[in-house]
């Protein structure tokens, strides 16, 4: 019955949706674990920020959006890229700096792009991409379309001026943007409460007369439902409205591959406690409890995504480096 109700409101059948989300979260988890291995082997250089622990945010939110909606994110964007449906092969190849990467090996881990999928990048300056999201929303509104842009950023970006300038203008201009703050509690090694006077990010929406919602980021279905509500507000005919979502999540790894998992800024016990809220385990547990997934079924799904990740690594390994001529290509457009 639930399925029938869901179908009448335009949602995919609930079980299908849940299984798809479980698969995507598992894919991200296995992809990131493999990226960590490849980083340790020196196959990935520079900064590499993993998404482990936060999978429910990208997966739940993007499941609620259309393929023609814009997506833009920070440098911790492997999860959103995968959830948007960018091929794991092209993403891994980009991490490896290869010519077959989604940014031709010129962007790396922090700058994944796929124009065809309307994935408008990973951006490396904290909060710097937040105005870009409003600009994409502006372009949609300018053309009178009913699309939207979702913008992912961490809670540390809330202390940046760009966040406040953009929320104000998005509200004044009524732009169809979902500002999705992934509050994982730490900006690198600094706890949010140590550097933020207002620690509930949702409260900032009051300053900009904006709709807001606090969401449990370890519950993929809660993220999905909140994003659907935000999307409905954005798409409203005759001018949509932006929404600020504060999605409370937790990063199970260090800030980047070069940073410790715990130590001076958080305890091992805290990380272990948080791991009990693992979003993948929660959804798998729910499906098992409801008789929709067996242990064997989960193992099979896991084997399937592991194979996909293995293939991505193989593809990245075997792909060529960019030609030297690529050095000077694409500085300017024709």
């Amino acid at each position, binding site marked *: 019955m639930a399925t029938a109700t869901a179908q009448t409101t335009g949602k995919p059948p609930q079980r299908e949706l849940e299984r798809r989300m479980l698969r995507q979260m598992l894919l991200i988890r296995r992809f990131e674990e493999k990226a960590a291995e490849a980083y340790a082997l020196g196959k990935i250089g520079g900064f590499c920020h993993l998404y482990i622990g936060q999978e429910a945010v990208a997966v739940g939110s993007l499941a609620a959006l259309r393929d023609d909606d814009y997506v833009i994110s920070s440098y911790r964007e492997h999860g959103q890229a995968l959830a948007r449906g960018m091929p794991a092969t092209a993403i891994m190849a980009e991490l490896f700096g290869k010519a077959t990467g989604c*940014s031709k090996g*010129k962007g790396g881990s922090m700058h994944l792009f796929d124009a065809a999928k309307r994935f408008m990048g990973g951006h490396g300056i904290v909060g*710097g991409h937040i105005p*870009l999201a409003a*600009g994409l929303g502006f372009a949609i509104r300018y053309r009178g379309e009913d699309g939207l*842009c979702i913008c992912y950023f961490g809670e540390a970006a809330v202390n940046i001026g*760009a966040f406040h300038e953009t929320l*104000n*203008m998005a509200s004044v201009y009524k732009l169809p943007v979902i500002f999705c703050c992934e509050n994982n509690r730490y900006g690198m090694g600094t706890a949010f409460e140590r550097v933020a006077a207002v620690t509930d990010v949702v409260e900032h929406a009051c300053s900009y007369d904006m709709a807001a919602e606090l969401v449990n980021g370890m519950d993929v279905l809660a993220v999905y439902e909140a994003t659907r509500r935000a999307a409905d507000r954005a798409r409203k005919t005759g001018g949509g409205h932006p929404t600020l979502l504060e999605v409370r999540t937790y990063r199970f790894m260090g800030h980047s591959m070069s940073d410790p998992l715990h130590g001076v800024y958080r305890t091992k016990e805290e990380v272990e406690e948080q791991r009990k809220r693992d979003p993948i385990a929660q959804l798998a547990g729910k499906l098992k409890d409801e008789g929709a997934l067996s242990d064997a079924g989960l193992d099979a799904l896991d084997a399937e995504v592991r194979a996909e990740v293995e293939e991505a690594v193989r593809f990245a390994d075997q792909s060529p480096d960019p030609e030297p001529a690529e050095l000077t290509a694409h500085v300017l*457009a024709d």
Partner: protein
Amino acid sequence: MPTLTYRDALNQALREEMQRDPNVLLMGEEVGVYQGAYKVSRGLLEEFGSMRVVDTPIAELGFAGIGVGAAMGGLRPVIEFMTWNFAVLALDQIVNSAAKILYESGGQIPVPIVFRGPNGAALQLAAQHSQAWESWVSHIPGLKVVAPATPADAKGLLKSAIRDNNPVIVLEGEMLYNVKGEVPEGEHVVPIGRADIKRAGRDVTLICHSKTVTVALKAAEQLAEHEGASAEVLDLRSLRPLDEEAIVGSVTRTNRAVVVEEGWPQAGIGAQVVDVIQREAFDHLDAPVLRVTQADVPMPYNRQLERLAKPSPERVVAAARRVLYLD
């Protein structure tokens, strides 16, 4: 040919490009209801409406970034900064977003956007409002930079900038907005990357751009009148890309050069021009190249001190006399 002010030439370029392409829009502080802080956007709100002539809060970083995002989404925004002094607040969006997204996306996402507004000193506005930023912005790969000196070039270069598929910085001048000159009607497009000889000469090349073109032209007159020296005035017009061929061509003929700019001396546009000359015209030089810049100080408020700080025809003449070995 009609005579227009520099301000109205820019207005004409904006109007014509907005009529030509529905994706072109203007965004900035006071551009709409107030008709522009310097009236460059006069009448555009009435003609094109508030979706295309967008008043913004005083939030340079924010609206510059919204412009970049809109360009990523297929529009062609023109972002007006009330002055380039305030654009410094938006440098992250200009440098880290606009200039880099095409490259870091492997060529997938162009950013066709114009950032424009008055640059350099006006009169007695003191240190924070009297700065020339061309050496900052022209340092950045991924940007194009133009600095028109005449109404005709202002129209033609702004039109080129709007049609370009890259971020283009257009440096105008508060002291130039009232300057009058002949401006071709309709389709008048000045290609980016081409310098222009504003006065032909044989004995020394005065290399300049924007407001210093007027300074150099006055100096050339004085050199002709008092020294019997024939100075060529080469207006760079574009600072990135720099028209190296025109620079080398002129210096090869005159064998002497003075570079004039409003900016500070260290790592200035003149330093770049001198590098071009020493590499490509070394054997043609009869004297070291000299530079005339703003004094290496924050701009003082006092009228006399300000005059001392700015490049003047007298300082250009003095430099030209030295390279001509007249001293």
